[in-house]
């Protein structure tokens, strides 16, 4: 299925101050990465690379986010962020909860991530969940290229929290369909074909008796 792998064009450079991400979950994503970083210098460089637009097109798929990053020295390098897909149990938990509370789906459709869902299962990366990888010669974790990618992913998540769900294993369509099935009451759908053919048909009503009120 093609929408399991989604590509996004490279961001142009951004200037300006203020928080790097706009939404609470975008900031939580940045925070998670910063909390696990070992080398603050690489983080700073990564943030500069991200802001300067040195990261190429980004690909998001279950368990994997990747991009190439330019580097003044001898790039480009290919950076990948690995993160664990949610277990089937976690997905069940998440979808059951969302299905019980129409507001969660409404929020997601409005491109908001309900905090309650993020608290329920590990959607946002915890310590060590985000596993950076890069073919650059440096051996810092994350290196500045992976850090730059990670910073820009926060921008993608700002715009569409469904990408977080994709990275955790399910596409938007899969989530919506699943929720649709879960919320539809378990009542019989339609009428039985056999009964429809078996019943005695009443006559058609008199057309002359149907005179709609003029609006």
């Amino acid at each position, binding site marked *: 299925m093609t929408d399991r792998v989604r590509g996004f064009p490279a961001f142009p450079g951004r200037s300006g101050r203020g928080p790097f991400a706009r939404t609470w979950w975008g900031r939580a994503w940045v925070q998670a990465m910063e909390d696990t970083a070992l080398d603050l210098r690489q983080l700073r460089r990564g943030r500069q690379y991200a802001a300067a637009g040195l990261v190429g097109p980004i690909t998001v798929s279950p368990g994997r986010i990747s991009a190439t990053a330019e580097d003044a020295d001898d790039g480009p390098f290919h950076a990948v962020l690995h993160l664990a897909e949610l277990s089937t149990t976690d997905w069940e938990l998440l979808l059951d909860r969302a299905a019980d509370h129409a507001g969660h789906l409404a929020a997601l*459709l409005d491109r908001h991530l309900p905090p309650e869902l993020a608290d329920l299962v590990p959607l946002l990366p915890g310590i060590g969940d985000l596993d950076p990888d890069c073919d650059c010669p440096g051996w810092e974790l994350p290196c500045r290229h992976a850090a730059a990618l990670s910073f820009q992913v926060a921008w993608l998540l700002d715009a569409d929290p469904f990408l977080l769900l994709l990275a955790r294993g399910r596409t938007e369509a899969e989530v919506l369909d699943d929720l649709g099935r879960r919320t539809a009451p378990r009542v019989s759908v339609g*009428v039985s074909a056999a009964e429809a053919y078996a019943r005695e048909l009443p006559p058609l009503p008199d057309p002359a008796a149907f005179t*709609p009120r003029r609006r």
Partner: protein
Amino acid sequence: METLDAVVVEPGGVVFWRPDGGEPAGPGRLGTVEVVLPEGARTVPARRVPTAEAVALLREAPGGQPSAVFWALAAEAGVRLADAGWTGPLDPDEQEWLRELADAMPPQAHASPVPGHPDRLPERYPLLLRFLGDVAGLEPDVRVSLRLESGDLAAGRFRAVVQVHGGAEPLVDAEQLWCSGEQDTRHEVLLALRHAAELWPPLAPLLSAAIPSSLPLGDEEVAELLGGALDGTGVAVHWPAELTGLTARAVVRPGIEPGDVRTFFGGDRVLQFDWQLALGDVELTKEELDALAEARRPVVRLRDRWVLLDRKTADRARDRELKPLTAIEALGVALTGRAEVGGDHVEVRTDGWLEDLRARLSADPEPVPQPAGLAAHLRDYQLRGLQWLDTITGPGLGGCLADDMGLGKTITLIALHLHRGTGPTLVVCPASLLGTWESEIRRFAPGVPVRRFHGSSRSLADLDGGFVLTTYGTVRADPAPLAAVAWDLLVADEAQHVKNHRSETAKALRSLGSTARIALTGTPVENTLTELWAILDWTTPGLLGPLAEFRTRWGKPVESGDPAAAEQLSRLLRPFLLRRRKSDPGIAPELPAKTETDRPVSLTTEQAVLYEATVRELMAEVAASDGIARRGRVVKLLTALKQICNHPAQYLGEPDDSPLAGRSGKLELLDDLLDTILAEDGAVLVFTQYVTLARLLERHLTGRGIRSQLLHGGTPVTRREEQVRRFQSGEVPVFLLSLKAAGTGLTLTRADHVVHYDRWWNPAVEDQATDRAYRIGQTKPVQVHRLVTEGTVEDRIAVMLREKRALADSVLTAGEAALSELTDAELADLVTLRRNA
């Protein structure tokens, strides 16, 4: 046409198929459809046709397979709904018929199974509604609304049920949508509710359930919904039909009828202005209002019904008294039926004598018998004008009669004077119209005293009813004696002259006291609201409020094309402004094809001095000669006097740059006439015997920015034809013609006015000229104005010709030279200027 195969419907289209699995005939895109037959599910060939085309096919086909007959009837129902302007919710009786229809849906008509359920068919009623929505082309936008239900009104328990229409669903409850509807529609509903809940948080609990189907509401929330909490969210609220709202309106309480209505409206008495609440048409009693004011709940029991009570209405029940109105303000709001209270436009009613007055003022005037003493037969519309004037002047109010020129405003006003029988009446008019007024009063109201307060004759002594005529200039310069008289009627003729309410003239006019004021004008004043305000604020002070307020309340909305504002303004003005046009269907048939009016004007001082000197000098020459020489001098005398009456510049042969304005009574009147005629978009022929005068008029009109053209004996034929074309096409509204040059073959039927600037003595020649305009093919009535200078040879020669039949005949054949047959004494009597005493 062939009968139809079996039919199932899909969103946006209709599918034709055959139960035997054969390929269906007819139009449409060929494909397949999955259907359930008694023996099980099968995929069969199908043709798909978009709904709009399919509706025509179905309705035209002569029956066929039962499913086709069914959908044909459904298509018919859909078309009827669309024709009725159906947009969503259905009435109960409509629903009942449609449910009956759905119940009669044969199995083949919904044989296409529910996706993922090969043994189940779609529910009949929702499928039918979706098809009807398709047929009626309902808006595809999904709209969410709340239907408030109450199982127990007494306990005030309300439940808001979420319902959805638009999209593929004409109208379903969210509950139903979540069972069978489309996922995209559900998502739109969720988003709409989320956004509405951001603006009105009490909706949020809807979103904590799995399906946002319904929500219990507390009193507080019901009150907020009543107050419009969801306005602007796009989510509409439908209240239960058994609950009614109260109607709030404001009422003017006029109290006991004042003894003297006339002084009442001019005085500073105020009238009580209250809120009134009604249930349907029944006014609530004071006790009921008190109960409402005390109510703590948004639903109250009133007259065995449950009534919704929003905060605003409850406040109005508590604070019932509004700011009192002045008498004239009260009349204004009673007439418009609306008032602005605290930023809301509310309905206004009144009762008692004020309501009687409002009804009388708003009704069409009924004809009254014409007053005894009027020496004329009033036409039907003039009688209606008289009744109208009587209706408004009766209670001491005033108004503006703005009929087209030629409809007889003067005679109507004279009739009003006679009808009221009191007097005195003061008429203020431009100086050029004093003569017309005087001659019309003498003609139509013989025996009624009339005097001028103008120039050297300014006496108001022994005033006993009757008419006093004065000019705007005199009122401005010498208002005191006029202000000392208690006038019955005060009339401002050509009232557009006082459109600037800050001018000295307007102020002086306001200082004059009278029982009632009438403005007359022939120009379409209603086109300029400020002008109209100035006139009506004089006739009926206070009715329209201050100018700035009037502009804000009416000017802007009316100019921006707000039909409700225009209608209210017209309700307010209608009683005080009567304007009829010559072309009105009720008027035109009453008008004679040709009306002739003598227009007497005075000489200016310059003209009078010149006239008298010329009479002295030339009469001496006449007396001193005889035979052929005397004959020549008589003609010279008459010609000189006629030219002086026309304009001093003509007689004196002044150069082309000499000043013209303010020197001739006739020219002043011509200017006034042209202003009115051109304001009516009319066209006019001006005849004179003298090419020099025609040139002079052309120069004068050009200076005033009025397009005119001149035709005289020397005008070449081709140019003549071009001039006629330009006049007939309306390019040039004023055509100056020398009487002799007019010749034959001119067709000038566009003219609705003819002015004879000077007298020809020979009616036949004048008639011939007039007939240039009034001919077969003329569809408009023609008005003929003959300008006559008072007290001069022009004025009296007609009298003499009437008296001396033989002389008249010789003038007819020989022209004015025949007047040389008169004796010196007779001649002197004819030409000597008679100063108007």
